[in-house]
């Protein structure tokens, strides 16, 4: 009746199938918010860190993880929140960045997560035409994690997944 206890590697691959509720082209693992998977006795503990303190997707994310693992046959799942070290966009995977770009969201510029608050001279490529002649409209966009940018060549507005 009870399936054999899956390895944590297998659980990680299952979690890689759970889409982010607001940006469904990337998974929660791509996003870098799943921090740990471990067995504690017969309970699977999944440790998740929030992206932004007030991100409304946080409770949905926990719900989706729980639901997905139950569908895989795990009935004892405990979700733990870990605040520190605080989530950084540096944890978004290479695949995740490519998927964001393909979806039309410019991924965070490498190596800028540590200099939040001094992002005036960012070199953000337009996800549609690739031009680097882009400008920031507003550092706050359609979700907490995104800023609002515009391409000066193809003139399209686009979302930039801002560094934090």
């Amino acid at each position: 009746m009870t399936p054999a206890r899956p390895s944590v590697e297998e659980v990680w691959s299952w979690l890689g199938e759970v889409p982010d509720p607001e940006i469904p082209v990337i998974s929660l693992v791509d996003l870098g918010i799943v921090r740990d998977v471990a067995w504690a006795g017969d309970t699977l503990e999944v440790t998740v860190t929030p992206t932004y303190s007030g991100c409304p997707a946080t409770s949905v994310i926990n719900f989706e993880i729980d639901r997905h693992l139950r569908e895989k046959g795990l009935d004892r799942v405990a979700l733990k929140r870990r605040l520190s070290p605080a989530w950084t966009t540096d944890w978004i995977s290479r695949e995740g960045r490519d998927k964001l770009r393909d979806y039309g969201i410019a991924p965070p510029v490498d190596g800028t997560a540590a200099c939040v608050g001094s992002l005036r001279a960012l070199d953000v490529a337009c996800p549609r035409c690739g031009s680097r002649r882009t400008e920031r409209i507003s550092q706050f966009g359609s979700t907490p994690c995104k800023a609002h940018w515009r391409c000066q060549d193809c003139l399209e507005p686009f979302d930039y997944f801002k560094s934090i």
Partner: protein
Amino acid sequence: MAGHAVQTAPLVELALRMGDNCLILGHRNSEWCGHSPALEEDIALANMALDLIGQTQLWLGLAAEAEGRGRSADDLAYLRDVPAFRNLLLVEQPNGDFGRTIMRQFLFDSWHLPMLRALQGASDERVAEIAEKASKEVAYHLERSGDLVIRLGDGTEESHRRMQAALDLLWSYAGEMFAGDARDAEIAAAGLAPEPDSLRPVWRSHVEAVLAEATLAVPQNDYAQKGGKSGRHSEHLGFILAEMQFLQRAYPGAAW
């Protein structure tokens, strides 16, 4: 639930002060939703409100946990009355025009960020963790509010006039951030937070640099309106609570 006459532990007091600032300023910013002068600003204000309410959940969650009286963050937000709130008078001041809202945010952010950076060295790990998380978000708040103070201060004659008026009006509420009281001394003695006055030089130098670029004159009167941190509030807080707490007061325990 009035909460007066109960001497809270230093950790609870600090978490309430931080959380109540975030809650009330977040609520004030949320009042702009759908009313801002431009769509981008509407979105920005709503996003900042969201950050602040998220931080409120962390701080009031810690306050509730440390207090150990079986209350939740929601209980603290929705079921306390005015004298139990520990926020600065600055953050409960009415929004006024857009310029006043931005100036209030700038004066607060300029304190909030160095405060959070200092709190990352707190003796309590939970305080340090929340501060680490929040400081990354608040760095964006400060960048934005400073930018806008410069653009509006050094903008048109009308925007300059409004920003100077906002600064002159709000200046007397800024001093409370640096005026330590007996509770602050206990909090500092416990290694939880710096003495408030120690943050004044970094605040002052940042604010003066931005105001100079914004062509705004620093007010000369340093009289400080105080009371919020110890629960003596302006008449405005009651109206905020009346709106914010209405649902839980009218339908106790309502959930969805």
